[in-house]
């Protein structure tokens, strides 16, 4: 009996592994290539071979191509929830929302603060910075009590301390915390909603010298009611409903007259302000201006001739539409997707102000502005 059982085990496990291997190979060959498309120097390739990071990439790549991965992750979430705490792949599965529970960027990037400072010192206009907490910072009280609930606030304060008076620092944390009972953050993502962005816009626009526009004057369109954000993709499991992606349109005189997307190879293409094509893709958030591209330039019918440069991450994408009523031109640069220095994209002398707008996670760990602002830090 024991022998038969062992033979059946051998056959069934071998068959299962073989099927998964074949399916994974097929998925790797036929699937989309999401691998490293950036420039990798020969030296860094050699280093990755020596220090083992190439092996890590292979391990991660294999997992990414693993057959039926989304279903596997869903099983993972249900198994973990049944077995122990509702923390799956660093995400806390609460009854009302998903919250990032991994302490990824435990320290702020001093190099990033230095880059912003150097930029401010070499720039004629005013520089403002908004460090935005993620949903984990605003809804920290929903996390188990042993998790440090004040980390994000401390990180934002610490980052602001690294800057001097040359950079105007704008508080978003307290505003969002105060309004946390409202729909200011997605339930399935770490990012703010358009409403959250509007709440902070009211503070930011005053610091930029304008009066904020009234909420009543906006018409709101629910572009999608099935948005499942980054936190959902890490768990494939949620006890609450998917999120809404909203488009806020101001009923005023100023209209968007043109939008252009700028790629790293110099290609410029006309585009609509909101990319509605994205609603039919996997990345619904690409609906917002410029998401997934290095730069977007937006021109309006406002004749005041004022130009604003925004350097930011995905938080900036849903924030920018609120600025358009006040400026004749707004350019947004996403350092995550740029490969060259700032001067290869724009002449910053044409902009009277620069607004840095990042989620605090982007300002932790490595320097997200490395490469883009190197020309300002070199002289230091």
């Amino acid at each position, binding site marked *: 009996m024991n022998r038969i059982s062992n*033979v059946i085990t051998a056959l069934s*496990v071998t068959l299962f592994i073989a099927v998964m*291997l074949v399916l994974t190979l097929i998925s790797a060959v036929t699937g989309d290539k999401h691998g490293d498309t950036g420039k990798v120097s020969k030296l860094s390739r050699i280093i990755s071979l020596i220090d083992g990071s190439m092996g890590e990439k292979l*391990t991660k790549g*294999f997992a990414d191509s693993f057959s039926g991965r989304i279903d*596997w*992750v869903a099983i993972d979430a249900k198994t973990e929830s049944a077995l122990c705490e509702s*923390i799956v792949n660093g995400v806390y599965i609460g009854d009302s929302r998903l919250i990032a529970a991994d302490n990824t960027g435990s320290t702020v990037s001093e190099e990033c603060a230095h880059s912003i400072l150097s930029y401010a010192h070499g720039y004629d206009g005013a520089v403002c910075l908004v460090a935005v907490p993620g949903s984990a910072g605003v809804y920290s009280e929903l996390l*188990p009590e042993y998790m440090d609930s004040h980390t994000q606030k401390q990180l934002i304060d610490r980052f602001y301390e690294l800057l001097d008076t040359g950079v105007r620092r704008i508080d978003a944390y307290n505003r969002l915390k105060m309004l946390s009972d409202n729909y200011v953050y997605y339930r399935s993502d770490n990012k703010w909603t358009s409403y959250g962005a509007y709440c902070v816009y009211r503070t930011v626009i005053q610091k930029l010298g304008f009066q904020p526009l009234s909420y009543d004057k906006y018409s709101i369109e629910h572009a999608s009611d099935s948005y499942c954000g980054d936190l959902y993709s890490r768990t494939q499991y949620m006890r609450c409903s998917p999120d809404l992606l909203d488009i806020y349109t101001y009923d005023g005189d100023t209209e968007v007259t043109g939008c252009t997307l700028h790629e790293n190879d110099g290609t410029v293409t006309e585009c609509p302000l909101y990319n509605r094509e994205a609603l039919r893709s996997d990345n619904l958030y690409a609906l917002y201006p410029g998401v997934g591209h290095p730069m977007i330039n937006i021109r309006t019918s406002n004749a005041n001739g004022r130009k604003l440069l925004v350097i930011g991450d995905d938080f900036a994408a849903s924030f920018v539409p609120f600025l358009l009523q006040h400026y004749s031109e707004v350019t947004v640069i996403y350092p995550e997707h740029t490969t060259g220095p700032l001067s290869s994209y724009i002449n910053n002398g044409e902009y009277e102000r620069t607004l840095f707008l990042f989620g605090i996670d982007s300002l932790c760990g490595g320097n997200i502005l490395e490469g883009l602002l190197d020309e300002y830090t070199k002289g230091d």
Partner: protein
Amino acid sequence: MIYSSLIFIYAFLPLSLLVHKLAPAKNKDLVLLILSLIFLSFSGLAVLVFAVAYTALNYSGGLVIQRARDAKGLPALPLAAFLSADIGIMVLLRSQLLRGLSGIIGLHTILCPLGLGLVTLSAAGYLMDIFSGRQRAEKDIVRFGLFILMFPRLIMGPVLTYSRFTRIMDKRSQSADAFGAGLTLFVKGLAKKVLAADNLYMLYCAVSGVKTRDLSALTAWTGAAAYVLCLYFTLSGLADMGTGIGRCFGYTFPDSFRYPLFSSRLGYFAVKWHIQPVRWFVRYVERPLQKQTTHKWLQALISISVCGIIGFWYRFNTNGLLCGLIFGLLLLIERHLSGFKIMKTTGVIYTSVILLLLGAVFSGNTVSASMRFIGAMTGSSRELADSLSVYLLRSYSVLLLVSMYASSDLFRTMILRAGSVRLRSVLTGARPVTVLLMLIACTALMSYSGTSEMILLRL
């Protein structure tokens, strides 16, 4: 690459088994060595170069000692030199003191697949056996390379004498039955690591992240239990995976753990816990030293000291040393108390309490931190239970109960003692389904990152 990763289970292992199966019998050793080098190269060329150089060092060490012995020279001199080199390398790469230096080449972080502590014991044992005449130096570099680098043994041993290793290698036998038994053992080890140890590690981290002065007694005991269980499941899980892989290739390595937790005596625990390394220290350190004296008290002191060395070997800090010394002392006391009747009824409870307290000492990074943690276990820091302890117990009760059951030998005993042939048949017949379900669950838990790398202790 480690065993508990998708790329290993679904790509490297099946392809390796296939290549090894297709290789001619006379070249199987060479093929296995090449596969082991490929396994190592996933951790970087630096690790590969280090491992090859380390093997060459000990291979030449064996030959030099053998030559000195055959020539009636002074084999003690080369033995001392090569042992110093082996131990020096281990200290350099595992010690916190020299972390900065080893960090220059990055080896301290990427030596994960190489159980350096275990490899050092194997190599040092080999050199000492040649010195004492129990073993002749190996001239076959391929066979010796496998002794050091064979990938099923690479992470968690088992530590074997060279003669036993060669006996196992020569007795290679492949059959569907052995292959199934190997896969069963591998999946069992994988489940120990991925399902139990990783989640227990999260529980331990939840407790250890709280300041000691804020810990209630119940939370502290829960944390200590999580640590001890996690340590057991990590070490035994990796060992089972290695032994299972070995069996799939046709090599039967001995088990490393025999359900040590919930033993009714510390002495029983000692003989069931990480059997081969503990035996190594007894064989190569304790016995030779004890032979030098006839004084009972001195022999007892040596036994306690060896326990201290074992503790230090695990953790490479004063906490490990202290934990080992205390364990050795308690072992000695227990031998004198084992005749008492009360020990028969309270044995499991007494052993468990001692192990949890020792776990608190062992887990700390400093002695004072461990003492504060033990203080919290006694309730001196705060109240006996608080909302955190209730939350953790509510969240992790299923895991803790299943882990405690799985770490005991209750299931095994149930099968062995099952009088009914039908019951035994049902339990045995359900094994393939159980193994497949465990593999599916482990695959799901690794599906996001592709690996399970939470390692409580790097040997």
